């Protein structure tokens, strides 16, 4: 079914971070905890879906001279609304996400799908494509966050799994996991893993 393909393709076959190598920046900053990674994933998924939807809705009326700016305006407005909603309803989490919610505007995935898919396809397809790419982004983010939180803090979603030596337990927290470079390494490992099973993703030199 076509919808299924649009939705599921970006999860493994055409993953925005894994294959298209887009949207890496935020993946570094918000993946120290699974909770923040989840909220970020939801925010990016919804923003991508809705911005693709609206761009697609008016695609026949956008003058080509202001095409990118129009997309930008729609994306920026949606991100601001998302940020305001977070500050009202999930204040604590929005504080830990701080500037990174605003930076969704600069996330290449959102603009990439608006320009690359929504301009040429119908609104419903674009919405599903946005959800699909958001899902692909979320899968990578949650995987990275899983390892960073588990190995860096010994917990998952705030629930302590491995007792840290600092609280009298046996697990010595891996400090590197709490720093940004660890996200780079983990993403690289994930890309390697995906391409081991999906050899068609390997770029020909």
């Amino acid at each position: 079914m076509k919808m299924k393909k649009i939705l599921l393709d970006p999860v493994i076959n055409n993953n925005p971070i894994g294959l298209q190598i887009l949207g890496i920046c935020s993946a570094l900053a918000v993946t120290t905890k699974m909770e923040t990674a989840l909220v970020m994933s939801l925010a990016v998924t919804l923003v991508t879906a809705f911005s693709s939807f609206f761009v697609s809705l008016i695609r026949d009326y956008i003058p080509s001279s202001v095409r990118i700016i129009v997309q930008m305006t729609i994306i920026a407005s949606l991100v601001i609304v998302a940020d305001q909603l977070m500050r009202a309803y999930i204040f604590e989490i929005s504080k830990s996400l701080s500037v990174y919610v605003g930076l969704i505007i600069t996330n290449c995935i959102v603009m990439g799908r608006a320009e690359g898919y929504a301009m040429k396809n119908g609104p419903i397809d674009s919405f599903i494509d946005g959800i699909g790419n958001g899902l692909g982004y979320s899968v990578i983010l949650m995987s990275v966050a899983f390892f960073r939180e588990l190995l860096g803090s010994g917990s998952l979603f705030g629930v302590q799994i491995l007792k840290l030596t600092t609280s009298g337990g046996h697990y010595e927290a891996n400090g590197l996991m709490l720093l940004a470079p660890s996200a780079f390494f983990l993403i690289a490992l994930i890309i390697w893993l995906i391409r081991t099973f999906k050899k068609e993703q390997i770029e020909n030199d």
Partner: protein
Amino acid sequence: MKKDSTFSTILISFALCVICSLLVSGSVVLLKPLQEENKKLDFKKSVLKVSGIGIDGDLTKDKVDSAFKQIETRILDIEAGELLRKGEKFDLEKFDPGSIRRDPATSKSIEAALDKGNIKSRELFLRIFLVKDSPESSTINRIVLPIHGKGLWSTMFGLIAVDAKDFSIKGITFYEHGETPGLGGEIDNPIWQAKWLDKKIYDDNFQFKFSIPKASVSDSDPEAKFKVSAISGATLTSNGLRGTVEYWFGSDGLQKFLKNVKERGINL
């Protein structure tokens, strides 16, 4: 009307701007009351954080309100160095520090030479928090003082808690700032904030002696108790913070009040 004509470009741009503006301003206005509530609760949590009052488990609104029974909120007349009597001049429930700061009737501009925190003007009346030994007691053990000053990108709003007897620093936290995450933003790092514990602001003659030097502070330094080392990579934020502390605990700030407390104690 062709979509690429100048007329339709302007028309569509205009229409899009109007719609997006309505959407954005609508959401801001509608959500503001909820956001203000969140900010107030967050501020109270910050006060509790440096007050030394222990709370078990998650900080719910009820727990925060009940812990606040151990805190006496009072208005300080900075120029006089004296606390206003309860209910005098201001209604505590309606006291909005931001408006007091902006209103020319309740604020004054700071002489450029004295304005180390770069805030240009400051309020004349400050809402401070006196921490009692217990909800029923009338003995104060800590004073929580709000300070603010310019960092690199933003005005940093923080709370410093000082011991009510020897005025050593018992805690510092920032409830609002826009400094660079990972650099100036490290003012939020609990490990760095812990360095402030038990440091002294004034020497035995009540002269301001606290500093934030660039070099790391070694334990063998006899003056170490007056120093907290600055944050690496955050020179300008640290400079701003240094100036902020120098201003607020200096002669144009809270020094007069704290001297009065030293000499006469606090009468609730």
